[in-house]
């Protein structure tokens, strides 16, 4: 028993923004993200008393979103990037110290916008695999558990997703070495 039991309302208030951002990356659509997150939160709410560690409920909601998205996938329209892209990507992530963007900063931001556009076109399961592996930093085993698939399937999805991105963006400039 923890000293302070976290209530569901308290959890939602604290984690809504972070979970919404994850939902957006999974769905690549604002309306779908809100719908997916609301559904996952509702299912979490009715099971709240059986979740052992409320401080770790993020993982529960995330898994609910991933599983729901994958379940919906066959019935959904083929993913098309119709939602507006984020207006811009934050300069602070590409330019330390601020100041007006340099030409290579602009090039980097443009590349990321293009890459995001391609990521959005990936099938949901592939996109979810990339989000879990590269953004949530989950291992292949943990990703497999989240998705409810085998580790081999995670490896395969990752491989094919990256191959698609490389094929779609053959001219993507490797900027890693260019960071100060």
């Amino acid at each position, binding site marked *: *028993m923890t000293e302070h039991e976290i209530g569901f309302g308290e959890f*939602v*208030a604290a984690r*809504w*923004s972070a979970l*919404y*951002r*994850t939902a*957006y*990356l999974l769905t690549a659509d*604002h309306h779908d993200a*809100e719908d997916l997150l*609301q*559904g996952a*939160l*509702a*299912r979490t*709410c*009715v099971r709240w*008393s*059986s979740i*052992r560690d409320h401080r770790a409920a993020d993982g529960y909601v995330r898994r609910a979103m991933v599983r729901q998205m994958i379940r919906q996938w066959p019935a959904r329209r083929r993913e098309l990037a119709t939602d507006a892209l*984020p*207006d*811009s*990507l*934050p300069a602070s*992530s590409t330019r330390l110290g601020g100041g007006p963007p340099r030409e290579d900063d602009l090039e980097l931001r443009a*590349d*990321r916008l293009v*890459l*995001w556009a391609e*990521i959005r076109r990936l099938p949901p399961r592939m996109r979810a695999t*990339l*989000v879990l592996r*590269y*953004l949530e930093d989950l291992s292949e085993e943990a990703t497999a*558990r989240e998705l409810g698939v085998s580790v081999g399937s995670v490896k395969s999805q990752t491989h094919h997703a*990256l191959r698609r*991105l*490389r094929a779609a963006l053959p001219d*993507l400039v*490797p*900027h*890693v070495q260019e960071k100060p």
Partner: protein
Amino acid sequence: MIETQVRDTLADVRAQVPVPVLDEVALAARVRGARRVRRGRRAVGAVLVAAVLAAAAAPGATLLPAGSRAPGPAAPVPAPLPASTPVTRAALVLEGQLTVLLPDESSYAPGLPAAAVLGSGPAGVVALTPSGRVAVSRLAATGQPGPLRALTDGHVRDAVLDANGEVLTFVDDGGDVHQRLVGSRADVGASGLHLAADERLLAGDLGRVVVVRGAAATLRTPTGIVPLPTSGAAAVSAQLRGDVVAVRVPGATELVTAAGSRLRAVAALSPDGRRLAVATGTGSWAFVDVATGGGAALDGVPSGARAIAMTWQDPDHVLVVGTDRHRPGNHVLLDCSVTRRACTERFDDPTGTLELARR
């Protein structure tokens, strides 16, 4: 490296996404909908469990010898819900020691070596010691176990406790079956039963024992032997409750009713034999009314849980030890309530040695 670019891009997009304000009204509506769906699923689960039992329960000849016990109910009558009781103390074996888990999740482990807990009753916790004797430990009001007091004079081959924890049945090294009240060192009359060297005692109550020889299980009384129509797998343990016997074989439990029907699951009969706690391999756990087949699915079962064994504490509570695929190697103790129709986790054993009382 495309991986690095994907990681950076996703991180940038996440940081940039405008987040809408939480629509609390919409969320409340979704929660209400989720509750309705969940209630519907529970009802469907109960119907499925009931259907399994109903399919297995057909009228037939009575299992028990004439005159030994009253026959089963003539017409299906739902078992009334037991009175709701609070979570009680649980006597267990943990790392080879008698351990009493208290309702507040604290525990006593005073260093009493135990090979197995046979069960608990009014006289205390009955355990099998590593040297093969049966002993009882009276619990203090706080739940702290007292010293072990021998109930048998010497080594026993097998020993079991009845459903109420009042009658001890054991087989001495010579194969003679003894029955005595827990706390007494004198037999309750002469059982007249004798087991061969290759026979094992699985269960017993006053005047009856369940015995296994190879793959054949039988119910024995001083007046006769009744073969139990199990599938042929070697029985590991058995429960004798009222007019029903549950025989556990590796990976399954065979429920033998008066009609000799079976149910594949981990299951345990309530102390009065009227309700069955069932945990199927698919994760559906339920209480089933033995007379009507009516079932009630349970909430609170972890998604990766798989039951290993279960035992009733009282007519309201059943303890279940299982594994959880999300916690490999651990044993998890769940306490499931008939009246609450839910399970709560009481203990997470990282050593994987947790065992329930055999009763």
